């Protein structure tokens, strides 16, 4: 038994490193009370080491701790994505005025970021309904505290409280669903659920009705995590009120964890392994809970509502919040097609989304540092005051719209190709129409920046050297991945290998 445990622990090293990082950072925060740099440094080292270990893990699938967690290429891909965004968030936070103002203690902030990252990494690997719930709670509780971290700002407290209330409700719903599925099948592990379901479904319509309710309840819990409409009501307020670094983190990494969990739960638990006639990389869904229709409905609703409401926003942070809701809708389209092609399109999209979304948020943060406002009206005339930043913002926003030659276009292209290959033409059309709506509100920002000036000329904004480097580091992939994307696409296709899937 000890051998088994050691083998499992060896595959758990990235998570263990992060746990140790959290503990060491907490202790360092107590011992070195004066220093503001030591905790972020420890967290940064921990995140980097964990990332390097994840990259070095074998390209195979393992179930560890009696099937509680899965270590497979699919999980590793998302873990790298989450760790990369955590590192970016730490870098952003170091130069964020609102956070560092008034001599605020920031030690716990970085510790909580590490805890949130750990929770999301566990979400990416969770292979058991209990682990799924625990991972979601670990990441949720850390993010409640983080979104209210600048608590003297009134909207930060509001954001935190709203987040807690919605989070409590949705995790309650999810627990109810989990208990129903456990009652039906007697199993918690995803793959065992899928093998135990067919005999249950033969019992008659009552069982399949219960299964449908349970599935819907769990999808509600997961939908909250990825801010899918109609479970999105918390998102705009939290995204607007939270410190902007946390907003960026929640909109990318938290969604990545939620998506990884949703993809794994839906495809493994409801896998119909009796259907083997499909081609390679495709699978079938068990009858009883037709989650495909649910996801189609959620996807269409999410992108349409996200985009339509984004048009009316005057606060750029809030606009980006709605746009990130819409992007969750785009990505859900990839889950509908039940092929590895769709999954790999989601993964590719996430990588690109990481760079362009972080870029947009970083520039909003830099401008907020300087002019103290996130209002789109206050962006007037910034095109001449900060030309480099605004051109970069333009590129990020164009990429978020999905226009060539930026990376956002490639992300959408792969999604739409996966849809068209499986015959979901109407869904692809809805997605394309939504991109047109998105174009309007992104361009509206750029019109204020470049075409509308202010009466009195203001001094140009100074940009620090380090800030410029970070912007360039985000800008290069956003442009480059639009031109040269085949290695990344190949990596995403190779990383669709999931424990328990054909």
């Amino acid at each position, binding site marked *: *038994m*000890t051998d088994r*445990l050691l083998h499992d622990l060896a595959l758990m090293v990235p998570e263990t490193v992060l746990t140790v990082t959290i*503990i060491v950072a*907490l*202790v360092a925060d*107590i011992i070195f009370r004066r220093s503001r740099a030591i905790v972020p440094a420890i967290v940064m080292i921990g995140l980097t080491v964990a990332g390097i270990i994840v990259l070095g893990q074998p390209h195979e699938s393992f179930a560890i701790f009696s099937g509680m967690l899965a270590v497979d290429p699919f999980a590793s891909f998302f873990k790298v994505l989450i760790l990369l965004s955590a590192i970016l968030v730490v870098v952003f936070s170091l130069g964020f005025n609102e956070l560092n103002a008034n001599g605020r203690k920031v030690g716990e902030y970085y510790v909580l970021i590490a805890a949130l990252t750990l929770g999301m990494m566990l979400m990416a690997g969770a292979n058991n309904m209990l682990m799924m719930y625990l991972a979601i709670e670990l990441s949720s509780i850390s993010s409640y505290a983080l979104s209210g971290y600048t608590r003297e700002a009134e909207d930060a407290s509001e954001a935190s409280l709203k987040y807690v209330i919605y989070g409590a409700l949705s995790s309650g719903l999810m627990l109810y669903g989990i208990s129903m599925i456990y009652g039906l099948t007697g199993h918690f592990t995803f793959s065992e659920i899928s093998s135990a379901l067919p005999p249950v479904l033969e019992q008659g319509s009552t069982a399949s009705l219960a299964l449908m309710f349970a599935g819907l309840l769990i999808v509600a819990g997961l939908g909250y995590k990825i801010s899918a409409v109609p479970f999105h009501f918390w998102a705009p307020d939290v995204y607007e009120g939270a410190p902007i670094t946390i907003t960026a983190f929640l909109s990318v990494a938290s969604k990545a964890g939620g998506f990884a969990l949703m993809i794994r739960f839906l495809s493994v638990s409801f896998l119909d392994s009796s259907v083997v006639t499909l081609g390679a990389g495709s699978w079938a869904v068990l009858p009883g809970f037709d989650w495909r229709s649910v996801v189609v409905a959620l996807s269409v609703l999410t992108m349409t509502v996200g985009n339509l409401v984004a048009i009316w926003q005057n606060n750029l942070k809030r606009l980006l919040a709605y746009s990130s809701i819409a992007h969750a809708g785009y990505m859900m389209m990839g889950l509908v097609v039940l092929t590895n092609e769709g999954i790999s399109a989601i993964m590719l999209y996430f990588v690109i989304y990481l760079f362009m979304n972080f870029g947009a948020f970083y520039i909003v943060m830099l401008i907020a540092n300087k002019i103290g406002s996130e209002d789109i009206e206050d962006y007037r005339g910034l095109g001449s005051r900060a030309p480099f930043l605004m051109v970069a913002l333009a590129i990020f926003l164009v990429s978020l719209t999905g226009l060539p030659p930026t990376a956002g276009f490639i992300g959408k292209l792969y999604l739409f190709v996966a849809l068209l290959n499986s015959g979901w033409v109407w869904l692809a059309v809805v997605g394309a129409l939504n991109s047109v709506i998105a174009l309007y509100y992104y361009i509206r920002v750029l019109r204020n920046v470049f075409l509308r000036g202010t009466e009195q000329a203001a001094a140009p904004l100074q940009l620090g050297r380090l800030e410029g480097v970070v912007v360039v580091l985000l800008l290069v992939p956003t442009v480059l991945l639009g031109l040269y994307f085949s290695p990344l696409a190949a990596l995403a296709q190779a990383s669709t290998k999931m424990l328990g899937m054909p």
Partner: protein
Amino acid sequence: MEQYIPIAIMILIGVVAGVVFANINRFLGPHKPTEEKLSTYESGMEPVRTARERFSVKFYLVAMLFIVFDIEIVFLYPWAVVFRQLAPAGIIGMIVFLVILVIGLIYEWRKGGMDWR
């Protein structure tokens, strides 16, 4: 059914003894009631009042501390029952768990969570 008869007798004895001891005082003891004597003893607090009252957030900190150590006991008892079979993984695991818990305690202590200000 027969094996339940002793249990039934035990229950009967328990109920009778309880009722007798609770009421025997009324017949044997002196009976001079005052308001303080009749009210429930709650460490000097008023036993009945409105529940819609604000109280210090410090109580939550104490409650959290209590939960942490409560959970520790919940884990320690079953572990202590079987720890011979679990060795050495079980011992190392429990040491790690306790160290994490102690760090949490030190953290709360140093951050002033236990100062009742």
